[in-house]
């Protein structure tokens, strides 16, 4: 174990450069302009799987690895909606998960933002026409502040979207 730890000290970090301001500006433009003022430069995120295939969860997990290192941006995943500023929702919103999603939202203190991640959450996925799913994805149930498309969205897509929440839109 000592050898591995020592290597960690001597090798250069794997963590990549942050997305550029120009890349973020486009996403931030769609957002509530007060987000950054309210939240400062830190966000607590509660992830809610509203019936995804778990592909989105894999990529959200990847945000924590050494390459993306989400926490360097002041973004962190929290265990309880009581601690959250943002709900990151994936999946088509199955009817069996609808109430749990709404109750998670209700348990989140104001001010709060909802990010719908993945094609299913946007209401466009392959499950959209099912008897078991909400028509229209997350937006049919909650007010969605930001969408991050992709099947699944890549960690970079997710990172850009979440950073955009914290950035003032370019004027």
């Amino acid at each position, binding site marked *: *174990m000592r*050898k*591995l*730890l020592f290597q960690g000290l001597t090798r250069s970090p*794997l963590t990549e450069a942050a997305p550029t301001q120009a890349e973020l500006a486009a996403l931030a433009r769609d957002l509530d302009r007060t987000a950054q003022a309210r939240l400062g430069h830190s966000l607590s995120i509660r*992830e*809610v*799987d*509203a*019936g*995804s*295939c*778990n*592909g*989105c*969860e*894999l*990529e*959200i*997990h*990847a945000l*924590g*690895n*050494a*390459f993306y290192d989400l926490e360097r941006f002041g973004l962190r*995943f929290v*265990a*309880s*909606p009581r601690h959250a500023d943002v709900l990151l929702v994936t*999946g*088509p919103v*199955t*009817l*069996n*998960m*609808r*109430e*749990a999603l709404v109750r*998670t939202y209700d348990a989140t203190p104001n001010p709060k933002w909802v990010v719908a991640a993945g094609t299913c959450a946007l209401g466009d*996925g*392959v*499950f959209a*026409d*099912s*008897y*078991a*799913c909400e028509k229209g994805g997350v937006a049919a149930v909650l007010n969605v502040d930001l969408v991050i498309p992709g*099947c*699944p969205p*890549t960690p970079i897509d997710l990172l850009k979207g979440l950073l955009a929440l914290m950035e003032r839109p370019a004027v």
Partner: protein
Amino acid sequence: MAVFAELSRQGKQMAAHRPCPRILVEEEAWRAAAAVLAEGKLTLLGLWGDGQAVHMALLEDGPDEDPGKFSSTRCETLVLTLACPLGSFPSVGAVHAPAIRLERAIRDLFALIPRGLPDERPWLDHGRWRLEHPLSSTPGERLKPAPVAYPFLPAEGEGLHQIPVGPVHAGIIEPGHFRFNASGETVVRLEERLGYTHKGIESLMAGASLETAACLAGRVSGDSTVAYSLAFAQAVEAALDLSVPPRAVYLRALMAELERLANHLGDIGAICNDAAFAMMLAQCGVLRERVLRAAHEVFGHRLMMDRILPGGVTVDLTPAGATRIRELLASIRAVFPALADLYDKTASLQDRTSGTGIVAPALACRFGAGGYIGRASGRSFDTRRHLAYPPYDTLAFEVPTFFEGDVNARIWVRIREAEQSLSLIEQSLDNLPRDNLARDDRLQVSVTDIGETREGLALVEGFRGDILVSVRIDAGGRIERCHLRDPSWFQWPLLEVAIEGNIVADFPLCNKSFNCSYSGPDM
């Protein structure tokens, strides 16, 4: 194959089912099959509804003295069908517990009643869908969808308390409800309630084109997208009697092993992290990311979704891509042995994983638990070996098997399988055929309408275990019925047993070592 021969004699073989026979039986033979399952002479591979009928897929080991050891490579499969004109059938779950949840799901979806089923609570249907019995021949509209009360199984005794967990969990994982009954720190009974991610996949499959259905199959459980796409493709190819171009066969194995490698690496790190050994998560997370990045560069998608279709594959491997994968293998081989060694030699970590969450070999056998769960408890079954499909019949690999059945054994199966996958990826690259067909035919043969109804069955080894897909294609080439059985159907119940007598704080560790799919069995 004495048992299969006897069962086959009791019914009528249906035409157009490939590759194994499908036998239409009467209730007596259906009951006989259930009794043989209960005796442990056969393994239940699946049990599903189909209009006014039920099908049961069975596995028979070769002429081996010791059931479940699978020393023989000659396993066989058989499908039994029972027509249920009166809307009911004799319950298999009444004598063979692994069938219980499958039969509860059949009743929810098809309104077929398993007579004698010991657990009459709904499973997938929480009372919230817009339809009642959505896959029955006459689904009813549900006027007022509302949650129904769900009585959990009781635990009685002095000082017992309940801990309800979920469906929204603390981590970034899928939703499901766990109800613990605990005596102080010790778990007396765990009961799972699932179905939260039910998406109605099999209803969406009915009537779909092959392309749409393949897309759906690739999203049954995202972490196994390659394995599901492959299982669906193989079932269709069996039904339509298609031969896949040799190059595509090897590219499929290449993708399947990359998926297995990525998942095992992620799991090894995540299990150790649940024992508060974060360094392993960091190190394995880097390796997993390297696999996904290579997959993205070479095949155009990090999880390799929609790369396998009936008839072949949609992407070729360029010489540069092959080099990229060889570099990936080298980079993982340079680090992984040290990580396995670190796991092996960290006593504080071993203290958490050894002897924790034990699944007895007899139970793993009875439930036909596949993947690392079965193979950590002595059940060495692996479809790549025992129901071998190309190209695995020509590749050299071992099926690592352990007998302790604890968290530690489930980690070791993953470590050894990751090593096997590295070798299988290399062999796939070495043996990748360079055939002389026209470019369009090298990767995918076209699927043409066959002009009659056809049926196919396939079993494919995903990283979690064997995925079963049964498909019926109509004369116009559309899906009439498709059933996809996730390996976790037979693994989730064992988690309830594994945690019993362990402390509540070890549940995340046990759960992660199982890493069952929610989306897969919720369908």
